[in-house]
């Protein structure tokens, strides 16, 4: 158990990694001149992990359990954990994504008790039927709150259209019906299965001495006497490559139509490692060159009023799914669709702008340098690198060595113009 330094070209950031005997991956970034420390403990377990096998038994739990569990871990026999963080002058929060759940704190003082508390509360659960019943009311309001966001509806409807079977099609928080089926036993089963240190990473960034952090974490895990891990097999359905449905439209009280176009790509196998990251960066740059604010297409569509400030694009590649999406508000949903598809076709056949490619590298480099100014952003970068199984500084090397041909190829590989889905939110007559 030893800290290994991670080289950070250009930046002189001090970062170390170690693997603890229980399997926990620890990353420590030292920022000696900062006051604030930031800690995140994260498990590779998210909303898509509702179906799994342990010791030959298959478990199929209701949608929204990972998110529900995240809420309930804060409740302990002697009260809410966030109260204890606040007594220590720290802020705390948590978040559930499709594939991960993360718990964090930030403090400027009393780092050591905060770190112990983080490890304890995430690894040692206390669930009761009473607590579960109470949380159902709170999460129902959270679900309703998101239902009121038209852009959120647009996006979740799009995923529902792209995917027939894969659980990414369901809201991370589940539904009012599914959360009603959750009980304490389900939460214990999922916690036992996915909250083993061997499935988790801890990231600490701040002014603390890395050796002292390692020593403290090792001692705390030893104190908790973590049993050996039981192997778990995640079960994901067979998802056809074709989109589930081509169109989905919903009427809501909105002032303008919103449109999103989604393209489903073959899931990366595996969606981790340097090669996968390289392909994702290449595709991100391709989308930027095709649709970014300095692209000819953006200029043309913006000047013609077909897109506006609300236009955006995104991509994701995770366990069992990969997609790209383009969307925004528009007065002319038909034209919006037709024009965006035609831009992609042009880029796929004629190639991308080489001048833009050189500038995109500049921009990446500047943004990369700037992102290390925030303790929090650093922590997320290091955590993401753990989940992606790459060095946190590999993006720079990748951008530096990418060639335009690879970027163009990524655009052809990831977007199939013969099969896509369109989601629309249209103004209901009032």
């Amino acid at each position, binding site marked *: 158990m030893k800290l290994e330094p991670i080289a950070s070209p250009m930046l002189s950031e001090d970062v170390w990694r170690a693997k603890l005997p229980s399997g926990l991956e620890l990353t420590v970034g030292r920022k000696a001149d900062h006051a604030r420390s930031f800690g995140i403990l994260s498990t590779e377990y998210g909303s898509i992990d509702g179906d799994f096998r342990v010791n030959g038994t298959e478990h199929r739990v209701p949608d929204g359990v990972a998110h529900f569990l995240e809420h309930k871990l804060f409740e302990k026999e002697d009260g809410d954990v966030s109260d204890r963080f606040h007594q220590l002058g720290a802020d705390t929060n948590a978040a559930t994504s499709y594939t991960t759940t993360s718990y964090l704190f930030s403090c400027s003082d009393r780092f050591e008790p905060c770190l112990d508390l983080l490890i304890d509360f995430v690894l040692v659960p206390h669930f009761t039927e009473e607590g579960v019943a109470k949380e159902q009311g709170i999460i129902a309001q959270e679900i309703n709150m998101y239902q009121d966001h038209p852009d959120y509806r647009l996006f979740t409807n799009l995923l529902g259209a792209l995917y027939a079977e894969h659980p990414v099609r369901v809201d991370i928080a589940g539904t009012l019906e599914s959360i009603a089926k959750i009980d304490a036993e389900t939460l214990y089963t999922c916690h036992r299965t996915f909250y083993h240190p061997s499935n988790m990473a801890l990231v600490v960034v701040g002014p603390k001495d890395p050796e002292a952090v390692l020593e403290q974490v090792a001692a705390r895990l030893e104190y908790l006497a973590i049993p050996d891990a039981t192997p778990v097999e995640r079960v994901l359905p067979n998802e056809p490559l074709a989109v589930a449905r081509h169109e989905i439209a919903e009427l809501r009280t909105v002032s303008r139509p919103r449109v999103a176009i989604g393209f489903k790509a073959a899931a990366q196998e595996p969606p981790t490692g340097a090669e996968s990251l390289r392909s994702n960066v290449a595709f991100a740059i391709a989308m930027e060159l095709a649709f970014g604010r300095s692209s000819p297409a953006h200029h043309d569509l913006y000047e013609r009023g077909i897109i506006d400030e609300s236009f955006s694009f995104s991509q994701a590649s995770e366990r069992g799914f990969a997609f790209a999406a383009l969307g925004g508000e528009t007065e002319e949903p038909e034209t919006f669709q037709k024009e965006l598809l035609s831009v992609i076709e042009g880029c796929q056949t004629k190639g991308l702008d080489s001048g833009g490619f050189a500038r995109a590298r500049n921009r990446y480099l500047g943004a990369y340098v*700037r992102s290390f100014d925030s303790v929090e952003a650093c922590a997320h970068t290091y955590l993401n690198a753990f989940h992606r199984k790459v060095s946190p500084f590999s993006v720079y090397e990748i951008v530096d060595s990418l060639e335009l041909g690879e970027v163009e190829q990524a655009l052809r590989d990831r977007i199939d113009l013969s099969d896509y889905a369109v989601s629309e939110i249209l103004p209901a007559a009032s």
Partner: protein
Amino acid sequence: MSSFEFETVRDQGGVRVHCLPTSKFKALHLRFFFHSRLDATATELTLAQALAKRGCEGYPDLRSVTIRLEELYGSSISLNLAKSGERNLFVGRVVCAAEKYLPSDAAGLVAELLEFFDRLLTRPSGEGGQYRPELFEQERTNLRRQLEGLRDDKDAWAHDRFLKSMFSGEPYGLYEYGDLERLQAVTNRDVRARLEHLLEHAPVDIYVVGDIEPKAIADQLSALRCLRGAKDEEPGPPIVHRPGPETTIIEETEAEQARLLIGCPIDMTNLSDRELFALHFYNTLLGGGMFSKLFRSIREKASLAYSAHSSLDSLKGLLTISTGIDAASFEPALALIRQQLSDLAEGRIEEEEFRAAKETVVGRLASLPDSPGGWTHQHLELALAGRQMPLAELPALFRSLEPKDLVAVAPRVGLETIYLLRSPSQ
């Protein structure tokens, strides 16, 4: 870290330059705050910002502006308006990576970036004191859509409706990005004239955080045209709101969740420094986090809401409580809110919650020097409130507060407007 304070290196002719030289950050952060009074011309200012992003002399459109910023190593320039009391701050934010972390051809980056920022504000594209007509019409349409689209964001819509109800006829009730009626009437020339007036007359605070030599950056700034002019219109103190009787307003829109907002006017007369900080602490304990009275009572104990919090505009003297609930829970949620306010007034403050709130506030303040934006904002807020003290003293000041300090300021907090936005079907 005791010397981690802004130094005001220039204060003359309405231009104040505050510098914090530090090698702590890998980027250079500049923020420009032009001070103007919140009035109906917010519409023109919003349009002027949108049009500034669309081009300037030598860079005639959004694309060439973006390309220029990419060439400057992905530097960013952003413009926005921020409401603080009756001020509408015209804010310019300029950030670039420090030259020493970039390849050698990045030398001179800061000077080029500042020149470009200045050009966007002072040399907009177009001729004869007007913007290019098609650009102007397009941005007018964009703003119209943005203003109409406010309804789509139920939280923002409820907040705007709440302010308009409570501050009807007062500038504070204005939306900082303008209004539809004014937008119809405003002309291309009006917008350009409003921007020129702002640059000529609005006093400006500039904050610089990064690895810089204060004198060198002050010299670079003095070359900017946007910092010339008389800068002689200080917006003056906030308008004192005369509290009215308690009023309940219920409005309807299609929404899954009802939004409840409560407006509590605060008597700000003769407030000492200690009382001002006690008010901030009062707000924190009431609704400033998961430890707060609102969060614990409405969410954790009664499970009525996912979010329940309060915010304080200490310049205006307004505390706003907001929560998202099921419309049927309106009465019980309101009763809980009243209970929390009277608990504070009567000193029913548990030792644990008080300590949690205090430790959190002190912890957040101690972390603030790690954020260039947060540190800048803190300095500006104190300056606007007319308070002068080193930022580094704030944690100790908050630490010295006791429950009786909160009880002492509680009578200043009233309860005037209860606003509920709900669905007609609820």
